[in-house]
């Protein structure tokens, strides 16, 4: 049996980083982001990255760290609020942003992983996000053609992994992670818990190990909350 477990983020990233590469990251807002791997990639100093991620983190956390260190030259995302330095680089033209409707972004990532180069959707038709894209009518409605996305490296956060790289996500921290795991030429998962072979129920694995080449135990597990909202009675 070959174990996919690596000791540290640096070891798991060894040999995989190069300037100009594309990196897809799981997570929604700050929920379910691969905190440890993002921090390690930021420390590596790799430059000129194209990042595929629903969001761009906040100023001092998540992908925001790599924005601040100016390692990202282009981002394919759906929503990038909550990040002042991002905004500054975007407005000054230092950072190129390709906006996608969130569901189109999710489907593009899934398509990339599933070997589908393009598909049609009604989402975005008649908006500036469909400009320059092919429009085609199916069943009387205009649809826009969107293309699959793949990345040189995919990084995801899961709850549990076994040595085969089988992953289980926790609650709504699943979000983009399962599809991002499929779109990488190499995929690294950081997890809260590593379990032994056979400890995951085969019917309950969210990401089969075929998609995961390397696994680390998450060293950072801050799980910062963006909007802590409490029951009125509890305030």
């Amino acid at each position, binding site marked *: 049996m070959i174990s996919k477990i690596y000791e540290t983020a640096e070891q798991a990233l060894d040999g995989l980083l190069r300037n100009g590469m594309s990196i897809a990251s799981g997570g*929604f807002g700050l929920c379910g982001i691969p905190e440890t791997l993002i921090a390690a990639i930021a420390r590596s100093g790799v430059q000129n990255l194209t990042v595929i991620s629903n969001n761009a983190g906040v100023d001092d956390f998540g992908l925001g760290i790599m924005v601040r260190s100016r390692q990202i030259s282009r981002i394919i995302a759906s929503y990038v609020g909550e990040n002042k330095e991002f905004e500054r680089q975007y407005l000054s033209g230092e950072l190129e942003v390709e906006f996608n*409707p969130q569901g189109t972004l999710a489907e593009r990532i899934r398509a990339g992983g599933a070997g589908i180069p393009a598909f049609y*959707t009604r989402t975005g038709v008649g908006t500036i996000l469909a400009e320059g894209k092919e429009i085609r009518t199916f069943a009387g409605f205009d649809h826009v053609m969107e293309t699959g996305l793949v990345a040189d490296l995919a990084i995801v956060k899961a709850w549990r992994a076994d040595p085969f790289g089988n992953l289980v996500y926790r609650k709504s921290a*699943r979000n983009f992670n399962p599809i991002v795991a499929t779109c990488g030429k190499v995929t690294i998962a950081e997890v809260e818990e590593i379990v032994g072979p056979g400890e995951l129920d085969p019917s309950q694995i*969210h990401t089969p190990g075929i998609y995961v080449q390397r696994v680390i135990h998450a060293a950072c597990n801050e799980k910062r909350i963006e909007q802590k909202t409490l029951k009125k009675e*509890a305030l």
Partner: protein
Amino acid sequence: MVWTRDQMAARAARELKPGNFVNLGIGIPTLVANHVPADIDVTLHSENGILGLGPFPTEDEVDADVINAGKQTITELRRTSYFSSADSFAMVRGGHINLSILGAMEVDEEGSLANWMVPGQTVKGPGGAMDLVAGVPRIIVLMDHVTKTGSAKFRRSCSLPYTGRYVVDMIITDLAVFARPDRQSRFTLMECAPDVSVRNVMESTQASFDLGDYF
């Protein structure tokens, strides 16, 4: 007397049908959850991958891995399920969500809406709004009738970049309710807030609309 935000949300809640799966946008639409009648069983959807959103948590219940699309902490219900973003938007795009209630900057008389960017201001991105308006078969907009500077938000045509074209079925503002039976029809004024006259509504509206039998 114009409707308060809670009254607008309560009016929108009357559109919910038993068994509906509903996506509520950020802002006033979120308030709709507080006004669901006890005898109407609805399931709330959040585009980050949840069906069955529960109420906000107590301090003890807070879980960073249980958030809604507005990144707010929420709780689970007995019906809750989690799934990936691709699966979440398969539900949206595939027309499985029955109703979406969302905010808007502008709606035009053809039911096109704008709610994601203002040229010259910082663009944050569309998030899931374009997917929702394109995929959900029934779209209700909850918005103030006029902007803070007093200009009409229900307009002949949108001045801001579209989120989606010909997609709005009903508009609920602090002054009035407009609806149409299908997306080819014109909007009809259905209700006005107490002491708000049809004339008041017309003066604050740039779009043309029909008057219902009621008026």
